[in-house]
């Protein structure tokens, strides 16, 4: 029982990830523009969550919770470092 459930879990994740991949590719191929870029960002974030949830099985329950906290803390560090770098260098660039 548990095995079939886990198998379905992977399949759901794969289906969602496929949809979230096809949407941005189609938009870039057909529509383009700033609107597509916004959708692209949303799809990328959603697909990231799908992968973490359905493939890496992170959740708020059990031992997975510690893994999730680790990932979220790293995400926070990355936000500071990437966001900060782009901010500082972008500001420098606009002054030159």
């Amino acid at each position, binding site marked *: 029982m548990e095995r079939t459930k886990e198998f379905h879990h992977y399949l759901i994740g794969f289906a969602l990830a496929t949809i979230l991949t096809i949407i941005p590719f189609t938009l870039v191929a057909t529509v383009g523009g700033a609107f597509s870029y916004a959708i692209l960002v949303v799809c990328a974030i959603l697909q990231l969550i799908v992968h973490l949830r359905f493939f*890496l*099985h992170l959740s708020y*329950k059990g031992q997975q919770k*510690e893994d999730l906290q680790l990932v979220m803390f790293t995400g926070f560090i990355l936000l500071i*470092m990437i966001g900060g770098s782009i901010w500082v260098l972008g500001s420098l660039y606009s002054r030159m």
Partner: protein
Amino acid sequence: MSDSTTESLHPGLNLGEEHGDDHLEAETSVFGFWVFMMSDLVTFGMFFAVFASSLGALAGGPGPKELFSLGSVAIQTAFLLTSSLTSGMAVLSLKQNHAGGKESRKQLVFWLLLTVLLGCGFLYREVADFIDMAANDGAPTRSGYLSALWALVGLHGIHVTGGIIWCLVIVGGVLVQGVNKGWKLTILRWAVFWHFLDIVWIAIFSFVFLGGLL
């Protein structure tokens, strides 16, 4: 086993109660690997930051619209995404392998090799694209943008190559020594690594390739 509430505490990249002591050790060992994986993510993050701040540094060289092909990126994405699923199937058959049957070991090896094959398909397309880029005035020495691009995408490619070699070593080990505790824990860590590479690829295809083509 009949108590599904205790079992569902251990879904995913884990072994499950039937594996006995191996299962308990898997928890700490996989968590330790997660710590490494996250430090690797920070490395990727900094490569992304460098890439993002080099977007304007074309130095008169070719930009994303001249260099990228949407179709090729789509094929690479399909390869890598499918390989993520097959690596998940490998972990599932490992979890069923607690009795140590020959049949389930065959299944495990099948999924591992299928993942390797898909990974090679991905690498083949990626290397072909790199060669095309270099031929179209897109060598890494051409501009700051191209240096950052080759470094970021190349770093991911090297990781995929490493993941493939690692997987082949696992297949060899499992065939020679059987699915023992050491290999079980190694497969779990490799699976975290492989899924992680697909996650990094989401960011690469979204922001480097699709973002560049917009």
